[in-house]
């Protein structure tokens, strides 16, 4: 009888510890992403826009870059749609503010990744990595994660460097 009691207490303790750790990790990183404007990738792509039309540095910089408000305004100066979200762009522009786009994909600090290298010199299509985003009509609400395995798989397939320091900075 007593023996069982001990076992139960032990189990509860272990479970509690696990739950605590999980909670701590979970709570420490709030994963929800709320974009300032409900940007519709799908619509823009269907409209015939290239990815690099907005992500302008994708071909010659490490990061793809996010559009500045002025860039949005080249089309959205006047109303293009009936979507009330569109007004938000003009509001930002009026305030001379940049739209505070939230980062959806964030590589860890110790990873070096260059869009230029993959897009310009290696001629990779954007969809090779960003498969779904162009088809989404809603901004993703959670960060998109890439695993080292997926990088490595492609690097091995393409006979690209798998040297650690080629990507780990």
């Amino acid at each position, binding site marked *: 009888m007593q023996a069982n009691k001990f076992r139960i207490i032990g189990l509860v303790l272990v479970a509690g510890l696990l739950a605590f750790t999980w909670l701590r990790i979970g709570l420490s990183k709030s994963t929800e992403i709320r974009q300032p404007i409900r940007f519709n990738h799908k619509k823009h792509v269907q409209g*015939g826009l290239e990815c*690099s*039309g907005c992500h*302008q540095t994708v071909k010659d*910089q490490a990061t793809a*870059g996010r559009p*500045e408000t002025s860039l949005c305004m080249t089309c959205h100066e006047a109303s293009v749609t009936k979507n009330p979200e569109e007004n938000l762009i003009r509001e930002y522009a009026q305030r001379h503010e*940049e739209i*505070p786009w939230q*980062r959806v994909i964030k590589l860890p600090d110790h990873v070096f990744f260059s869009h230029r290298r993959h897009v310009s010199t290696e001629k990779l299509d954007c969809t090779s990595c960003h498969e779904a985003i162009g088809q989404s009509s809603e901004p993703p609400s959670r960060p998109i994660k890439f695993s080292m395995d997926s990088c490595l798989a492609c690097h091995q397939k393409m006979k690209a460097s798998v040297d650690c320091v080629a990507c780990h900075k």
Partner: protein
Amino acid sequence: MQRRNFIKLVGGTTAGLALTSCATRQTLPVKDPLSEWRAGAEQWIPSTCLQCPGGCGIQARIVDGNVIKLEGNPLHPINNGRLCQVGQAGLQVLYHPDRLRGPMIQTGKKGSGQWQRLSWTEAIKTVGGRLREMRSRNASHSMMLWDGYGSGLMSALFQRFAEVYGSPNYCSYASGDGMAPAYYAEQGLANPVGYDLENANYILSFGCDLLGQWRSPVWAQRVYGYLRQERPGPKAKLVQVEPRLSLTASRADEWIPVHPGAQGALALAIAYVLIREDLYAADYVSQHTFGFDDWTDAAGRRHMGFKSLILKEYRPDDVAGITGVPVDTIIRIAKEFAQHRPALAIGGPGATMFSNGTYTAMAIHALNALVGGIGAPGGYFSQREFPFKPFSPANRDAIAQKGCSMPRLGDDESHPLISQGRPDLSEALLTETPYPAEVLFLYYANPLFSTLQPEKLTKAFEKIPLVVSFSPFMDESAQHADIILPDHTYLERWQDVPAAPTSGAIVLGMAQPVIKPLYDTLHTGDALMLIGREIGGSVKEAFPWQDFKSLLVESVQGVFEAKRGSVFTESFEAENVRQLAKRGWWIPTHSSFDDFWNDLLKKGGWWEPQDSFDEWGKTFQTPSGKFEFYSQLLAAKLAGLTPTVGAGAPGRRIDAMKPLPAEMGGGADSDKMVLPHYEAPKSSVAKDGSTFYLNVFRPEVLVGGGAAIPPWLQEIIGPHVFMKWDSWVEINPATAQKLEINDGDWIWVESSKGRFRVRAKPYPGTMPNVINVPYGLGHTMPGEWANQRGVNPLLIMEGKSDPISGMAAPGLTPVRIYKA
């Protein structure tokens, strides 16, 4: 329609990142510093380093609007893409947490630290209003401008301000090496000279920290590397004469420890050997020098020449005792110096910061004349002026004219060679002679830290009703100011940067903003113009420019129109320009000024190489038109005459010489007073066996010595003794052992004026009777890193000065040391 826009947008150039875009673009994206977003756009913007007077070209790496790295501008003739430790650390000046966020006003009494932010409009109104009111009661002369930068258009702007406002009290404290009195007395030059180090075979440096902080360290180090391993032919020899094994001494081929203040005597003993053994350049001396042999003036009076004086008084045996340098070393060095021409003797603060500084400088410089180096390859050349377009003449009203005619504050008759830069103003300010100062502007100056008697000056500050500092940091002097009008840091502003003279070429670097100002600061040039406009009247009219940048553009037009030199180019092109210039040709490279200006900003600056050596008229602007061992200029000054010197008057002689005032050694020995000679340096307390001379040096990593020391530099401050973040005192190891002082022990260093506690570092590069303490730490300013780190040795040093030049002479303070 939308589609078309899109296509335009996609196909249109995104390369709107012209080099100047950052500077000219009005609205930069608002950035939340906490967001981790980096759009990643990268650009390189050329500018010029202002961490020291060296004037190296830099290029700033900008990523997403942040300055990430500074690197040397490869096109810049001074640094050729290189950059020193201080230049590299410039980022930590720009982003320093202790930077002032905007104009501030002291609400309590001076130094109370009760600061209140105010707007620029209010600040300018306050200052300008006060100045206007002073003019209204004819007190304009009591405004003082204290310019610690002392070159280029900012300096010119300050001078113009003083001139149109009506004050004679503009003083510039450009850092010098203490050789200026010699250039003036012996060559008649007001500007510093250039050194042809690249072609020298023997460099004899008297306390000149060539590699550490002399003029342009990067240039000097480049030349050092060149002389060591790149130049075809044999290596040049570098001999360093100073009490401490400095960085330069340790990298020299030979270090000659010499008693502090005795370098002049050593130079004269070397001259003795040269003369005695007929090793000097006799032809040169007879053609291009004056006062070598005894001579008779127009009045028939016989004067002693340099030769007689030397042979009479400076036998190496006698000098060995004064200097502590063995006789055979003196003779050997002298022979090497004479036999390895072109040979150069260079002086520096290590030799001239004593009360005998002028004569020491003259003695050192005389060696160059003896080996025929002045105006010859491998020697010295005179420096030319920048062809800036002069400001349009200002209309000075009656108040201004009257104010300017007043005597200058602290002008002291007893210092014959005093010029714009005046030494110790604490006395004058404190005693209010000849009148009290009412407003004091401090630019690039922190005298409460860097003068010998800060406590005296602090008291003087209290007497001045309005002290205005332009410092971007709350340094010691700003703390005792009433209003701070913080300047941008150099990475945020426009400025012309005339590089410190090096090899004779004149180099104009352009500093342009590489980032939008981080805080609510204002270019001091702009602030000054706003104050001028606030004052109104003729003062307002004197500043027609919209801002400092337009002033800069206008002035640079002169450079364009001068049809000289060239914008920085690749080295082969530069050589081409040089060759052409030698033949007197100049090929225009830019079709219009706009073209020139844009190229100037893109390349980082303009320069004109040295084209010839033997322009004697330019080299010797003395009454005799020659190098004067017997300085007639000094003689005239000592005699109270107005010297006939300056650009239009070379070659004229002063025929009549009045006898010197008695206190200056007038009478029989008066000839000696104008010849290079040795006088024992003054010290108030006689040094006895138990005391040491306190030798102060500036560590190499603190070159330039801005108020905010980047933590990166503090961390590496004394690598040779493993010191970080703190001051130390270097003691000769044998002495330390005798006193039972171990490495790292805390000891007191005590002079008649006070004492401080530092850690002891036995260092074999120390003379047994000298201790060395670094200068540059020991700030008492708010902030995490600089405050109370280390000690400021100036606090316990004696306030002596050189009676001839009036320069402060901190050189000889006897101290006791004992364990704490």
